[in-house]
């Protein structure tokens, strides 16, 4: 691969098509998957590639459940080759047991997660409940906010997860419907260039090497378990260096540069919203509107959710007076997970700032520039008062009596 910018073609793809095309271009050896809304089109698109002889002789295993999907992915990856899948919501929940196995065995499986609410009550639309459910499962979690980013982050995922210094599974998250089903302009590489960026993957300790047999999934009791888990955590924390390096390489290759934490007009911002997912784009518009009227507001998007980029976040928010963390998942008995991350970064860095938490968008509920501009008003009030003047946890666009916590 030359470190020069590759030629690209502009097409109109939704997030699901962008994911499926990236898997095809990555020449995945085994895809094992089960359809579930809203990630179903990834599996359907890939099936069509297979049907048309366009899947590079890879095997496509149409399993009978998501549990078996991830189990087959683990078996295939341990076999020694490139493996990918896709899922959402309840399917993700069914996989959880095996997600821990994949990361514990250090298998670089790549999974496109089209984020969706978790029942009950049942809901097929987007929120981050599934992503949050798996946040301790030991996977690298990347967040894409648009179809282009879905496409790009898939290649960064393969290159990072399969790096022999990392050897970890990677999830690429995108918002259900808002990203997965919204067609936008995407620039893509030729098949040859795309594959060239990641190269082929041989696999470490392949089960299929009969000359050098290996045992996967041994039981590690008292004297062994702690060491193995901490080794795994060490690899996950340190994978941020590899992710960073691959963001750079990809920037040279594509002209699109990613960062563990994306910032928008944060340098002089007094009020900052920290968020993940497609709401980043809506907030960007809100920031532009408020900036036009002279407000010093900014925006931070978490690109790498695990390993959490603490230093990058600290640098991005250091000049703010007031910060709002947006969580698109019901925190169930405490504050939101992103809020908790921001709060920890403030404490670790001895930074004293007003910090608010907003729960938004559950089950696909709309979040508009008006709502976001309301959050910036709350933050401004805190900045002006020099202290937090609002409850810790508030809700956006929820009907009924005003609901807040703490």
């Amino acid at each position: 691969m030359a470190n020069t910018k590759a030629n690209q073609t502009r097409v109109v793809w939704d997030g699901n098509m962008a994911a499926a095309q990236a898997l095809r271009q990555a020449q995945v050896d085994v895809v094992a998957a089960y359809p579930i809304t809203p990630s179903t089109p990834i599996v359907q698109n890939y099936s069509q590639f297979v049907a048309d002889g366009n899947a590079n002789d890879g095997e496509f295993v149409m399993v009978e459940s998501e549990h078996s999907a991830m189990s087959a992915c683990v078996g295939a990856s341990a076999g020694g080759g490139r493996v990918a899948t896709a899922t959402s919501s309840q399917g993700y929940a069914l996989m959880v047991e095996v997600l821990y196995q994949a990361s514990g065995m250090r298998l670089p499986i790549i999974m496109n997660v089209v984020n969706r609410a978790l029942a009950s009550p049942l809901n097929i639309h987007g929120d981050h409940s599934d992503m949050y459910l798996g946040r301790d499962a030991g996977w690298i979690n990347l967040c894409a906010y648009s179809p282009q980013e879905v496409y790009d982050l898939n290649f960064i995922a393969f290159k990072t997860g399969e790096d022999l210094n990392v050897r970890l599974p990677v999830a690429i998250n995108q918002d259900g419907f808002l990203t997965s089903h919204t067609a936008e302009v995407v620039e893509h590489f030729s098949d040859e260039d795309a594959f060239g960026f990641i190269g082929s993957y041989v696999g470490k300790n392949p089960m299929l090497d009969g000359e050098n047999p290996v045992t996967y999934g041994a039981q590690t009791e008292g004297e062994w378990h702690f060491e193995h888990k901490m080794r795994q955590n060490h690899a996950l924390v340190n994978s941020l260096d590899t992710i960073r390096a691959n963001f750079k390489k990809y920037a040279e290759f594509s002209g699109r540069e990613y960062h563990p934490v994306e910032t928008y007009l944060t340098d002089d911002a007094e009020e900052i919203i920290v968020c993940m997912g497609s709401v980043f784009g809506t907030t960007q518009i809100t920031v532009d509107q408020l900036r036009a009227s002279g407000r010093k507001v900014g925006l931070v998007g978490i690109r790498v959710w695990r390993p959490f980029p603490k230093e990058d976040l600290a640098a991005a928010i250091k000049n703010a007076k007031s910060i709002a963390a947006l969580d698109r998942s019901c925190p169930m008995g405490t504050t939101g997970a992103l809020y908790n991350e921001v709060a920890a970064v403030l404490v670790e860095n001895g930074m004293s700032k007003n910090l608010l938490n907003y729960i938004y968008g559950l089950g696909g509920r709309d979040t508009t520039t008006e709502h976001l501009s309301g959050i910036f008003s709350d933050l401004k009030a805190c900045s002006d008062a020099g202290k937090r003047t609002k409850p810790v946890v508030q809700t956006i666009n929820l009907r009924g009596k005003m609901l807040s916590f703490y």
Partner: protein
Amino acid sequence: MTEEHLLKGWEEFEAGAILYSFDGSSHHINNSIQHSVADWRAEKPVFNEEHCIHCQFCWVYCPDTSIISKDKQFDHIDYVHCKGCGICVDVCPTNPKSLVMFTEQTTNDEAIRNWPAKDTKKDA
């Protein structure tokens, strides 16, 4: 053999808690063949070559891969992995048996000297 020689710091283990079966052409230190289960045994089987017909029943039915055969002949009992279940004795077809259980304390020479006589009832 204790496991202590295998204890390592977190940074030294093979990532993913992988275990290897072989180290070149010999068994890896993590192969269970390197691990003794002899202390599971209350009684041990003793082999008496005099009566053996090398039928290999004991070899095929030993659950602990502890009857070692060479060139289609009974060779020896692997007392490091034998758990003393007694299956080999039970399936041995000769009369008297070519394998008999004795207490751990009995030496194999003593055992052979005290070998049971042919069971005449059985043949009748």
